[in-house]
C-alpha cells in the first residue's frame, strides 16, 4: 500500500496553495492522488516528469505538483506536449485534460496524437461537464442531462472517449473511476511505462456542476454510481447489446505493440544520414 497523503506531501508544491481550489468532494483530487502514486511506482524522478495540462478545473492540477509543469491554453495541451516530447524524448510527459478540454475544443489534437502514436500519457478526467466555467454540457454529458446551457436537457450523443481514441489508433487505452482509485493508479503507471500514446480516462465526480443539477446526489453517491455501473471489460463484453444500459467497462481496453512516432522518426533521420542527439 502506498499511502496517498504521505506520498502526496512529497510531491505537492510547498506553498500556501492548499487546500486546493477544487470543490468539496470533487474527484479531481482523488485522481491527482492516483497519479502521484502511479508516478511514485514508476520510479521516475520529479525532474524526469513533465506534467502538461489544459485549462479547466482538471487543468489546475499542474499548479500543485512539483514536476516540470505547463498549464497551456484550453484544448491544446497535447500540441504543447508533442513539442516537448519530440524536442527531448528523455522526458516522460503526462498530459492532464478535462473532458471538454480533450474532446471538445481539443478533439482534433486528441485524434491526431492517437494516429501519430506520440509517446505521451494522456489522463482525461471525465466529469461529464465543463466544471470551470460553471456547468455547461460537454461532449461527454449523457443524453437528456441538465446543464447550465441545457436547461431542457441535452440532445447530443456523447462520445465514448475510450472508443474514440481506440478508433484513432491509441496504443494503450484504459478507464477507471475515482471509486476505483487503486485501479486508476495501476492503469496510470502502466500507461506511463507504455511506449506509444496512452490514454487513461478517469471518471470523476463533479458534485457541484454536474451532480447537483442532475440530482446525482452527493460526491459519495456519485462514486457509488461508478461502483454499481462498472464492469471489467470481459464481463462487459458478455452483456447482450441492448441490455447495456448505463454500464461501462473499466480496466485496460486496448494494449497494442506498435512503434511510436519517435522510433519511426529515427528511421527518417537515419535515411537522411543525420545523427539524432
Amino acid at each position, binding site marked *: 500500500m502506498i499511502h496517498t497523503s504521505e506520498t502526496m506531501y512529497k510531491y505537492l*508544491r510547498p*506553498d500556501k*496553495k492548499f487546500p486546493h481550489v477544487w470543490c468539496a468532494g470533487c474527484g479531481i483530487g482523488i485522481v491527482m492522488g492516483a497519479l502521484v502514486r502511479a508516478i511514485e511506482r514508476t520510479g521516475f524522478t*520529479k*525532474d*524526469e516528469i*513533465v506534467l*502538461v495540462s489544459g485549462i479547466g478545473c482538471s487543468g489546475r492540477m*499542474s*499548479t500543485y505538483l*512539483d*514536476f*516540470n*509543469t*505547463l*498549464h*497551456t*491554453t484550453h484544448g*491544446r495541451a*497535447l*500540441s*504543447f*506536449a*508533442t*513539442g*516537448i*516530447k*519530440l*524536442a*527531448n524524448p*528523455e*522526458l516522460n510527459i503526462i498530459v492532464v485534460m478535462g473532458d471538454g478540454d480533450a474532446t471538445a475544443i481539443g478533439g*482534433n*489534437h486528441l485524434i*491526431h496524437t492517437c494516429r501519430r502514436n506520440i509517446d505521451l500519457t494522456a489522463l482525461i478526467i471525465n466529469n461529464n461537464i465543463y466544471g470551470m466555467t460553471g456547468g455547461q454540457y460537454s461532449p461527454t454529458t449523457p443524453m437528456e442531462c441538465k446543464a447550465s446551457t441545457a436547461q431542457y436537457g441535452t440532445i447530443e450523443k456523447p462520445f465514448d472517449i475510450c472508443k474514440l481514441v481506440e478508433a484513432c489508433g491509441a496504443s494503450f487505452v484504459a478507464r477507471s473511476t475515482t471509486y476505483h482509485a487503486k485501479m486508476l493508479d495501476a492503469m496510470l503507471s502502466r500507461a506511463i511505462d507504455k511506449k506509444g500514446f496512452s490514454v487513461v480516462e478517469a471518471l470523476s465526480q463533479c458534485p457541484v456542476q454536474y451532480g447537483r443539477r442532475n440530482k446525482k446526489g452527493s460526491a459519495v453517491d456519485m462514486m457509488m454510481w461508478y461502483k454499481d455501473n462498472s464492469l471489467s471489460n470481459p464481463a462487459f463484453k458478455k452483456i447482450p447489446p441492448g441490455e447495456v444500459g448505463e454500464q461501462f467497462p473499466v480496466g485496460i481496453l486496448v494494449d497494442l505493440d506498435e512503434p511510436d512516432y519517435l522510433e519511426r*522518426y529515427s528511421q*527518417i*533521420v537515419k*535515411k*537522411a*544520414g*543525420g*545523427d*539524432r*542527439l
Partner: protein
Amino acid sequence: MKRHKDLLLHGNEACAMGALAAGMRLFAGYPITPSTEIAEFLSVELPKVGGTFIQMEDEISSMGAIIGASLAGVKSMTATSGPGFSLMQENLGFAAMAEIPCVLVNVMRGGPSTGMPTRPSQGDVMQSRWGTHGAHPIIVLSPQSVLECYTLTIHAFNLAEKYRSPVIMLMDGIVGHMWENVQLPEKIEVIDRPEPSVPPDWYNPYDNLPGGEIVPLVPFGEGYRYHVTGMVHDKSGYPTLIHEEVEQCLDKLIYKIKNNLHDIIRIEEYMLEDADICIVAHGSVARSAREAVNIARNEGLKVGLLRPITLWPFPRFHLENISKKVKLFVVPEMNYGQVYGEVLKSCPKRAVRVTRVDGELVTPAQIMEKIEGAAL
C-alpha cells in the same frame, strides 16, 4: 564583389537556411501558400542534422508544438501565412505571456480571408502587433531581400533567446517567393540560451531582476522544476491576482522590450542627410522606394528613405528625429496604410500614403507620382 561565388536562393529557402544556421532544431507547421517551401525544405534538411520536422494537424497545434519544444530547450520555429497566422494568435499570446522564445514566420499573402493566396501583400503588419487578445509587446522583423531572409531569421532567433519572446519574421510574398543571388555571411552571431546563474532552489523563472536583466529560461528536465502558465503569474510562475504581482508580470513584458529599444530596433537610412521628403517603406516595397529615391535624386529632388527593418517595436523615435528635418513623409505599402498609421502618430499633418492592394508590388513610378505631386 565576386558575385559568382554567390548562391541563388529562394526567399523561403534562405529563411529556412537561416533558421538552421541559428540552431533551430524543431519545426512544426501546416502547409499554406506562400510559406510552404519553408516546411518542405526543412522536412528534408532537419533530419540530416538530427533535428525534428513535424507536420501538425493545423496551425494551432503547430504553434503549441514549437512552444513545447522551446520549453524543452530546443530552438523551434513555425511558418505560415495569413489564415494560419490568425489561427496562431491565441498560442502566440501564450508564448509572449509565458516568455517562451520561438520564431514564427508569416509570409504574407493577399487578404483578408482566403484572399489571394498566390499574391503578395503586406496586410498583416498591424495584426502582427495586435492580433492576439490582451495585447502584448512583440518583436517583428521585415526582410527586403533574399539575403535578409537568411540574416534576419538568424537575428530573429537571437532576439527570441535574448529577450525570451516570440519573434515574428514578417515576410511579404515577394521577398519570400523571390529568387536572388546572395552571398551568405561567413561569420554569423548565434545567441544560445544562457545557463541559469542560480541553483534550482533559488530559481524564479519570472523574476524581475534589477536593471531589467532577463532570467534565463532553463529547459524542462534539467533539475529546475517550475510552473509555466498563460495566466497572469508571480515571479515563480504561479497564477496570481495580487495587484502588485499582476502589474509586475505585465509591466515586465512591456519593459523588457522598451528598455532595449536601442538593441532591438534596426533601421536603414538611405540619402536622408539632406532630405526634404522621407519615404518610409519596408520589405520589398523598400526596394521600390530606393529606386524611387534614385530617380528623384536624378531629378534633383531631395528624397531619402527610412526602412524599418524592425517593424515592431516601431522605430518611432527615429521617425520623430527625422521629422524635425523633413517636410513630408511618403509611406508606400502593399495594404491600405498600416505603417502609415504609425507614421501619423508622429507627424499627422505631414504624411501621405501610397497604397496598393491588387497583389502587385508598389512601383517606383507610383511613389514618384506622390513625390512629384508633393514637390510641386
